[in-house]
């Protein structure tokens, strides 16, 4: 059961941009040596990073036609930078171990690559694994938008992949579904188009190693200026991450890590180039973690 692990942080690229998972890293094994509390702290930077990226670049216009066939197929690419404060955590003594001063901090999954030694009572020691020393996180997602019926269009994101058992990412599955509905139709004439949207996403790695679920709701406003369409949105994100891994210290036992649900306001400002066949957009997001996103779609 040698789980050669490719880097977790490449998973989104692998999921959507068809980038092969780099071989090598060892997330499962790094987690396996950690107690549940410490695994939660080790993975601590990921929920905000995933929430900030997965919940971005979904709706890029407030204009939803009442009726008619429209579709767009494209790729969205979202990225964030990690704070330096996210690179370390204060470990909790694992069962049976009593630490003695000096009390060390350990790297998180994005922290420095060197393990940290914490000395314990009677000359014992426990080692905390190094991180992968990364400063940014990017998430890509293919997206299909189909409309419109009664001022409503549907949005779908989907990706999956099976990789060799020698890689960390043996299997990924990503699915998102939602809709955006025009609310301009219910209001007196406004200088902008307004639409409300809701979107649900599920993202799994190796069945249950990491499983995330995200819900995003927002109201998007936009205005046409020839081919350009600036847009802005105010929304709300809800994000849940769970992990399940084998305890390497006690093989056969699984450790479940249940992260608290994260909720936050999500503000977006962007610009859409609404060309006849090609749609290009770029946006900035203030969310769980602030970030940027771009998208390229084809359709009408």
């Amino acid at each position, binding site marked *: *059961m*040698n*789980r*050669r*692990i*490719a*880097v977790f*942080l*490449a998973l989104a*690229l692998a999921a959507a941009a068809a980038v092969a998972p*780099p071989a*090598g*890293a*060892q997330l499962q*094994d*790094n987690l*396996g*040596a*950690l107690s549940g509390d410490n695994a939660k702290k080790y993975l601590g930077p990921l929920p905000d990073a995933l929430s900030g990226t997965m919940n971005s670049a979904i709706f890029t216009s407030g204009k939803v036609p009442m009726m008619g066939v429209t579709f767009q197929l494209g790729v969205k*690419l979202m*990225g*964030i*930078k990690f704070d330096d404060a996210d690179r370390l955590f204060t470990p909790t003594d*694992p*069962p*049976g171990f*009593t630490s003695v001063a000096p009390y060390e901090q350990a790297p998180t999954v994005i922290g420095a*690559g*060197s*393990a940290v*030694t914490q000395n*314990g*009572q*009677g*000359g*014992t*020691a*426990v*080692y*905390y*694994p*190094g991180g*992968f*020393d*990364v*400063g*940014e*996180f*990017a998430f890509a997602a293919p997206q299909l938008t189909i409309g419109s019926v009664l001022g409503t269009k549907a949005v779908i994101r989907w990706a999956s992949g099976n990789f060799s058992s020698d890689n960390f990412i043996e299997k990924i599955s990503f699915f998102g579904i939602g809709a955006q509905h025009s609310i301009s139709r219910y209001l007196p004439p406004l200088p902008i188009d307004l639409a409300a949207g809701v979107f649900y996403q599920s993202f799994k790695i190796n069945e249950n190693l990491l499983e995330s679920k995200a819900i995003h709701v927002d109201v998007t406003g936009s205005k046409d200026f020839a081919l*350009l369409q600036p847009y802005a949105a105010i929304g709300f994100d809800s994000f849940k991450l769970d992990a399940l891994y084998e305890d*390497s*210290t006690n093989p056969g036992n699984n450790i479940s890590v249940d992260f608290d649900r994260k909720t936050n306001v999500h503000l977006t400002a962007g*610009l859409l*180039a609404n060309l006849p066949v090609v749609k*290009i957009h*770029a946006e*900035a997001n203030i969310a769980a973690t602030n970030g*940027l*996103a*771009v998208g390229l779609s084809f359709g009408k």
Partner: protein
Amino acid sequence: MLPIALVLALAVMNGGCILIPELKDRVVELAVGGTTSAVFTVQGATTAVDETQIVDVGTELNLAQILSDAGIDVSNVTNIALTSVAYRIVRADTDPALEITNGNITVQRGGGTVDALVNGLTAAPGAVSGFQNVALDAAGVATINTMLSDILTALPGAPANPTATFHLTGTSTGPTNFDFEMKITISITGTVSVRVPT
């Protein structure tokens, strides 16, 4: 199209290309754990507890398998150490009020010196329990750490004197008939090379 290109370029380049990760090689130091245990069947008609277990630590820990599972080559191991010793009652005594006091556990590697590992142990073997923490003696910890280091150095073979004799003594409040399990947990670090998008 020029404004669009400028906006896209700004979005992509701002903050160091966060939207276009670059794959870089990294050396990451992993940490993995392992355990081995010994069960003492404590049985006696008197109030004296005196049981011995011999453990082939090298075979029981199976360091080679632990490292293989984690994808760490033995030449890349950077640290190995004893992390903890804990005990639990796996078969309760028929006397629910039985107590063990002044318990001690010593460790002797092969025919070497006998070193204290656990002092002042108290236990309530009248009921099955989860693992309980114990205070460790530096002399016994050092003996085990030396043994672990020697086991690692000898891989894939076995080191000299790979066995350890654990000797449990103490005083009970009555005749005894229970099973006492001692668990040893170790921690290991080793490096692996990875490619990371950053």
